[in-house]
């Protein structure tokens, strides 16, 4: 994947995190709005699934950017990218299961 695609998704996920993260925060911290949001648990689960995906992409890509700036060697850069991708996918799979249990879908 071209670096511009990766970084464009980095910005898109940043905007997604700001929106879905705000919903997540309100749901857990504001009693009034939180009750309204959590009333439809399927929609809230969808929100959390998008939030988790966007957050993991943004966070792990951020870590990758910092690491390849620290270790600019060509070979290392390739391994860092793959390692970060695999760790990210595994974390998303586990996180999705935890979410399903917590919101009562499993």
């Amino acid at each position, binding site marked *: 994947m071209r670096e511009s695609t990766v970084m464009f998704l980095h910005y898109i996920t940043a905007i997604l995190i700001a929106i879905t993260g705000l919903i997540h925060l309100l749901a857990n911290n504001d009693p009034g709005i939180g009750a309204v949001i959590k009333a439809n648990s399927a929609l809230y689960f969808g929100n959390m699934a998008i939030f988790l995906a966007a957050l993991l992409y943004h*966070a792990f890509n951020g870590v990758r950017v910092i690491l390849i700036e620290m270790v600019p060697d060509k070979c290392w850069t390739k391994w860092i990218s793959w390692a970060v991708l695999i760790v990210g996918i595994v974390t998303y799979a586990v996180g999705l299961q935890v979410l399903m249990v917590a919101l009562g879908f499993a």
Partner: protein
Amino acid sequence: MEAESEFKEYYAKNMRGISGWFKARAYTIERWLYAAHRITGILIVLFVLAHFYSTGWHPGLWWDALLGIIVTFHTANGIRLILAELGFAVGKPLLVKKPSQRPVSIEGVQRYLVVFALVLFFVLAAIWAYYALVVQPMMG
């Protein structure tokens, strides 16, 4: 012998290393924001990993307010960076320059964007602190 050649190489290369990321003195405010954005980013990743590991963990009361400062700074400055890095707030190249021209990308529209990001940061951090210090204890 090995150590000695490494020592020589260090001075011959003259790279600042990671301390160079945070050498913000003598430069403009964008450099401070860059350093702070990177540090807050790393701190948020650490928090998120802990938040996943024991689901829903958060540090509690005053630490929550500190977490709010970290997250809201990254958000507000991130909005500025998205606008600037995709070329929307850095102005146009000049055809006529003054004898000691200051860069348009720093002292043009982008200056207002910096102010906007800082104001947004303070407002968001205050709202977060209100929720962390007042609303959360009431919810129990």
